[in-house]
């Protein structure tokens, strides 16, 4: 299991289009990816769940990656987050 923290810098927060791209990135891998914000968690492969987490600018999300390819998938996700936010 691998985790990293990710702070939302975008003014609009984790908005629909970015959420869509995140779900796509997650679906491209094989790992189970969970987002955790405060007490709420969301399965990162489910678009509505990700959007409903309503991550806003300045908020921090813990990303957990689990599975046989977690190294690779986690790196891909981290790159995605760096690039987009």
């Amino acid at each position, binding site marked *: 299991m691998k985790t990293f923290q990710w*702070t939302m*810098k975008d*003014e*609009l*927060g984790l*908005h*629909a*289009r970015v*959420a*869509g791209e995140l*779900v*796509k990135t997650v679906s491209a891998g094989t790992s189970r990816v969970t987002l955790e914000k405060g007490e709420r968690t969301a399965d990162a492969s*489910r*678009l*509505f*769940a990700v*959007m*409903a987490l*309503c991550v*806003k600018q300045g908020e921090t999300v813990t990303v957990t990656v689990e599975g046989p390819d977690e190294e690779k998938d986690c790196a891909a996700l981290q790159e995605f987050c760096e*690039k*987009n*936010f």
Partner: protein
Amino acid sequence: MRTIKGIAASAGVAFGSVRFVASPLQMTALERVRDPDRELVRLEWAREAAKQKLEELCAAVGKELGPECEKIFQIQLMMLDDGDFRAALRRAVQDEGFSAPYAVRRAAEQLTAMFAGMEDAYMRARLADIQDLGIRLLHALDPDAAVLPELPAGSVAAAPFFTPSQVMGLAAKGALGFVTREGSRTSHAAILARLLGIPAVAALSSSYSRLYDGGVIIADGFTGDVVIDPDEKTSEAYRAFERRPNIGEETLAQLRTLPSRTRGGRSVKILAKIWKPSDLPLVLESGAEGVGLFRTESFYRNRTDFPTEDEQYRIYCSLAEQLGERPLTIRTATHDGRVRSLAEEMNPAMGVRGIRFSFENPELFRTQLRALLRAAADHNIAVTFPMVTSAEELRRARRALLHVKEELKSEGVPFGEAIPVGVLIDTPAAALVAEELAREADFFDIGTNGLTQFALAADRSNPEVSPVFDFQHPAVLELVRRAVLAAKNAGIPAVICGDAAGDPRLLSYFLGLGVEALVVAPSSVLELRRAVRAME
């Protein structure tokens, strides 16, 4: 006559009769069926049809209006494939025995409920995307369930909100514009309206109920005003505006490649500002003639380690390469009064900001100057120093730059010897000693937000003084005028930054002064270009 206020969602004026548009979803009646399996097959078939339509739409829209727009519909494709959405549809048929159309309504309602309670306006706007998908499925189930009713000529469409496809439909059916009760400038409907060049006013909220079907209105997408039953004088004023050539004739998509030139042949550059490197795609799409201001504070946000010289160098080079020949002006890092300051201050806007921050943090300053000088070796890059209040401070900054140049020279590292050095005129002091500053600078960036905040003693981030924060105040305009004149007399370019730069009402003032460029958000570039092209 009565004027109600909304948000200016898409520039232009729509002068016509109100036509309320009901959502086909809300008109779908409850219906139970005996054979749920048949309904599931119908739904699956409708999903496939909707998917194919959306894919076609994505391709067409992407080609005509650009990739940002394509993403609006791609999100719907993803929603369509989403497990939660499919499960909600299935449950409505299997567990509750609803007909396929009513199951669509039910599933859409369940998912919108997830967003309806949210405080965040942007997320609430996702309702429209879900509804759009629902309407799309209804249409696939029954081609008679039209996305939009017939609109008589001269209609201004009105609804609580419009979905993206409805906006596309409004454009195709020749609606003059639209007004909504909900929505914002960032809703997908507004983004599309701007790209298609349809005037729109959003977020009329409770005043929306003042509208009545068939009533004459003027929806002013520049100001957000909606005039109900306008009197003769107001009507005439708006008709004169409508007769102005160019307005509305060139869609924003066409404007992307047209020059920013007035009808009289006066050119002004329209540049974009960016907060962070990932904003650049917006600039490339916006049709901006370059980046007029890259605020590099984003480097320091949300991190404790500062970016290295090489890291910055790579970012600057990558931005400049994507821009090609177009210029890139980099503002040295300040720390913004609106974010938590590195050292807690009582009044951060007047504290250690801008060039003061650089002088207080010489290592950060030096790293940044090295990175941008190196990147300027073979790229069209300029540097500008913020919050300078005296010629001595500018000279000190230039000495630091010279020092770094010598360092790079002795190390044999290539750099941009002739990098243009600008100064931000964002304090009244700078505007008042502009003549002296002009002798030491290669160009002026006139920061109208800073000038307004400091001249009127009104904190930009304090909503209680927002009525005082007026960049059209004569004191602010006088400071701007002095700065531009000083630049003109010294033969250096003057560039207007800040919110005033994007206000079409100030365009003729700025052009009259002889400014070289205006720096605005990427999303405002095309509207401003349209306003420039409509000027005499």
